[in-house]
């Protein structure tokens, strides 16, 4: 038995982030408490930026690495780069300490009972929980590995690596801790359930193909005759695991509860990056491994896409909590991406990559704005409290309106170009009825986005309404970047579209 060879140069971005996460854990053990926050933030930023630089340097690489378990190719690098950019901005939101007097968005010790003496002491001492940064780095590393996995086992490992830290992070809200704990537990239980289903499906597929490699599974589709039941059940079960992560109906039920309960910076990070990673993995799995049986999985995905768009858009109508509304909006958006996924060709891949990038950045920005609107109980997430916000804080409300318009897909914003490209790809792929449903769902969705804008700008301000906190430079820069990118990609989408088009070729 020979030792496996590892392509360190190509795997360097992953190794950097994994390494930094491990160092982060060590910092928790060895660095004095007072310096910990600074050191962790600097380390995380350095690691993510270094990793991003390496990803950019690797642009154009097409390698099957780590003895066939990991692929570094266009889609993988594009998604890794986007995840890194979004994570860097997320770090800025995590490190925000000006909004909560003397603390960040996370509980000083998540295990302490809310309102207990122990907690009061911790708050008075301005204790910060810095474990959140290594946890986040682990999650980012998992997300980067997820769309690069070329092997059923590696894919499962990546799924778990990205999920487990997120379960923890969801339970760490400084305010409304019980809601946060509940969210974490729900996310964990359902996530474990879906992981089990995914693993079950992987076993079926292995049983069918006799191999874990995507390329070999792909070959087996034509050679193995008579075991289709095993294959199709496996494909279906694996699909469920991934559809759960992107929040597609009927595996979406966790989304609103978790998005609402989690600390808002974590929600932002999770909503933007998990979706990217999960869709990346899904596209690779379905195009590379199961591309040969697309006529078998397409009808199922049609049904899921329609259900996702309709339920996401329609249920969002009656939401009264801004975070829940954004959660349902993210469900609807998952449906829009699925329309392109059904098409299964290079145009569709490019459209999905572009859509995910633009959606991710707008989502980050929108949730970050939510952290600014506060009253005595923390973030004022009830919609009624947002009434007349435009009159008091035109800039904040205007920025939020920009993100909402991008979600609604109004021209001059990135959302329009993204939606146009996924729908165009779907039509090219013969999924016109899906696009019709998509456009109708967009119309319904536009209603609740615009309703918030109307509420902010044309309603009388609420009595004793929330105030808009002035954030530190971290959050300001993060939101500004998100707004600028949303506007810029709406006006000049060409370069990123070209990049996505070039990056949309899978290596088998």
């Amino acid at each position, binding site marked *: 038995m020979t030792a496996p060879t590892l392509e360190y140069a190509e795997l360097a971005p992953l190794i950097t982030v994994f390494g930094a996460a491990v160092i982060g854990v060590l910092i928790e053990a060895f660095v004095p408490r007072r310096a910990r926050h600074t050191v962790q933030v600097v380390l995380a930023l350095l690691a993510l930026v270094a990793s991003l630089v390496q990803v950019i340097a690797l642009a154009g690489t097409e390698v099957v690495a780590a003895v066939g378990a990991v692929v570094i190719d266009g889609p993988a690098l594009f998604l890794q780069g986007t995840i890194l950019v979004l994570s860097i901005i997320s770090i800025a939101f995590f490190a925000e300490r000006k909004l909560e007097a003397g603390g960040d968005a996370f509980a000083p010790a998540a295990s302490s009972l809310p309102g207990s003496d122990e907690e009061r002491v911790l708050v008075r001492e301005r204790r910060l929980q810095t474990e959140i940064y290594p946890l986040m780095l682990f999650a980012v590393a998992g997300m980067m590995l997820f769309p690069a996995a070329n092997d059923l086992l590696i894919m499962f490992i990546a799924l778990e690596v990205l999920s487990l830290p997120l379960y923890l992070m969801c339970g760490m809200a400084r305010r409304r801790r019980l809601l946060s704990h509940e969210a974490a537990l729900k996310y964990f239980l359902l996530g474990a359930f879906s992981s089990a289903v995914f693993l079950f499906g992987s076993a079926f597929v292995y049983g069918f193909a006799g191999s874990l490699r995507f390329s070999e599974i792909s070959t087996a589709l034509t050679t193995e005759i008579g075991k289709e039941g095993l294959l199709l059940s496996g494909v279906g079960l694996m*699909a469920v695991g991934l*559809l759960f992560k992107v929040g597609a109906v009927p595996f979406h*039920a966790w989304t609103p509860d978790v998005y609402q309960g989690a600390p808002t910076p974590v929600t932002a990070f999770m909503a933007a990056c998990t979706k990217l990673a999960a869709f990346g993995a899904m596209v690779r799995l379905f195009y590379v491994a199961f591309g040969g049986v697309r006529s078998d999985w397409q009808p*199922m995905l049609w049904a899921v896409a329609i259900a996702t768009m309709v339920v996401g858009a329609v249920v969002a109508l009656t939401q009264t909590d801004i975070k829940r509304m954004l959660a349902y909006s993210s469900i609807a958006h998952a449906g829009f991406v699925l329309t392109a996924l059904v098409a299964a060709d290079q145009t569709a891949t490019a459209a999905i990559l572009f859509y995910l990038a633009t959606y991710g950045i707008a989502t980050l920005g929108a949730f970050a704005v939510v952290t600014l609107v506060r009253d005595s109980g923390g973030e004022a997430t009830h919609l009624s409290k947002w009434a007349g916000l435009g009159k008091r804080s035109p800039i904040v409300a205007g920025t939020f309106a920009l993100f909402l318009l991008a979600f609604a897909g109004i021209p001059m914003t990135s959302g329009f170009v993204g939606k146009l490209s996924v729908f165009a790809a779907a039509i090219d792929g013969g999924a016109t009825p899906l696009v019709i449903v998509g456009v109708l769902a967009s119309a319904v969705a536009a209603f609740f986005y615009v309703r918030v804008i109307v509420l902010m700008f044309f309603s009388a301000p609420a009595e004793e309404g929330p105030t808009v906190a002035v954030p530190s430079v971290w959050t300001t820069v993060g939101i500004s970047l998100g707004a600028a990118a949303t506007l810029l990609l709406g006006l000049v989408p060409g370069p990123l579209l070209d990049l996505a088009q070039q990056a949309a070729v899978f290596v088998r």
Partner: protein
Amino acid sequence: MISTYSTLATAVSTQAEHGGQVAVEATGIYSWTWLLIAFPLLGAAVLLLGGRRTDRIGHLVGTVASSLSFVMGVVLFVAMLGEGDAERAFTLDLWEWFNAGGYQVEVSLLLDQLSMAFVLLITGVGSLIHVYSIGYMEHDERRRRFFGYLNLFVAAMLLLVLAADYLILFIGWEGVGLASYLLIGFWQHKPSAAVAAKKAFVVNRVGDMGMVLAVASMLAVFGSSSYSLVFANAENASTGWLTAIGLFLLLAACGKSAQFPLQSWLLDAMEGPTPVSALIHAATMVTAGVYLVVRSAAIYDLAPDARTAVVIVGAITLLMGAIIGCAKDDIKKALAGSTMSQIGYMMLAAGLGPAGYAFAIFHLLTHGFFKANMFLGAGSVMHGMNDEVDMRKFGGLRVAMPVTFATFAMGYLAIIGIPPFAGYFSKDRIIEAAFAENWVYGICALLGAGITAFYMTRVMLMTFFGARRWKQSEPPHESPSVMTVPLVVLAVLSVVGGAGLLYLTGDIVQWLAPVTGEAHHDLPMPLALLVTLTLLTVLAGVAVAWGMYGRKAIREDVPAGNPLTVAARRDLYGDAFNEAVLMRPGQYLTRSLVYVENRGVDGAVVGTATAVGGLSSRLRRWQTGFVRSYALTMFAGVGFVVVAMLLVRLP
């Protein structure tokens, strides 16, 4: 529809102007024609954008800008005199405005005999009125803004008459409408002024719709709205289209020139400062409709039905205006009625075709002189009488205000058509042409002359003669010379303008002939007889007025009057007519549309929204918050996915 690009191409190559004159590319001094518009536009920009910094010099800037434009106009006029009779048309292409879908619009100017006449009238009378306003508006703290609006008006009016494309004309058309709106409502603190401005705006919208329809029709028929292409191709168009375009243009003219049935706004427009009434609502803007008809001669020549409509509108308005003028006690409103009536004369003449176009313009110019003169005279009287406008409270002012009286008298003699004052020459020509065309037109015009003599004599007697009925402590004073000098100049023009235009600088009719064409008419009676008849009618009018207002003392309270007087006092029920025919049905229509909107359209929309909302509430219940039910849903989902995957292969 004749619109094809091949016909356009041939049209460009021939480019024959109506009347046989070919417009050439402007060179030399003519290529500076744009300065005419640029001066007042710059003035307006400085005054309106400069803010309070320009308060102190505002009136001077405005007057200088307008005067520079006048000087430029004179220079161009002198240069034009040096050209051959039929070589006086110049086009100046400034830039291409847009070129889309085969519709190309050049921002280009056309300077020919017709526009030259207007340029001199607008800038000349306009500059005099600027000077007069320096005195009249002296105590108004918003004087700078007033001059800014006046300059804006002059610039827009010049663009209107210099445009070489109906769409460019339309810009000027809307520009003067805007200036008119702003100036009628200049004293916006008075609700009556604000309402009057709004009324003028709304009524003019109706006319502007005619303009839009006309331009759109030209686009459909000729594929262009430039004069050269439209006129050159007019012969190839069907009479139906030409009649339609003619009627649309007439509608536009009716709005701008306060002709029946869109006359109602002009009387209310007297709420504006008096110089505005003189410049915009007497001398220049309200004559834009006449300009439009004369300019579109090539279309009206080929559309006799449209021309007949123009004549009928003119005849009705000339009598209506005159009758209204007889009953008004407000000096400005009496003059406004007179303006309507005189423009009715011009429209009538313009509707007579080549036989009348030149006379219409001739009367337009002389009217511009004497009516501006009289309005400014009325303004001078008001200035001396603490802004009193009720003639029943005037009387005997000839002693207190000798200059105003003398100049007003010149205007009076001119308007009623006593030889050799200006109005005699121009009005007489129109009456001749009307008789030559048709007895009915002739009698209308003649009757109008008699009524004009009556109401103008009435104004004259009530204001300047008879007992002093004013009660103010200090006697009325004559206006300062900054106001009387323009009056004197205009009075001189009222005296010599008619003869001067006919004999001094060469015949105005000959001057305009290359643009308007020419037609000789045969009178049904000897010319001397007609002139005598006209003069007798005028004298009869004067005599009746003398009998009613000169010999008897004038009552200060308003007598009951006969039904006709009552009707005339109420503008011959123009407002009531609008209210009954337009406003009420309009309101009814909007109400029904709102009903349909609420019940039908909204019902469908709201119904759908309610249905979706209901669905949303149902689906929301799915979100119970219990992990067990979420897991169950997922489990069902797993079952569904697997079954769906397997089912696909079954058939």
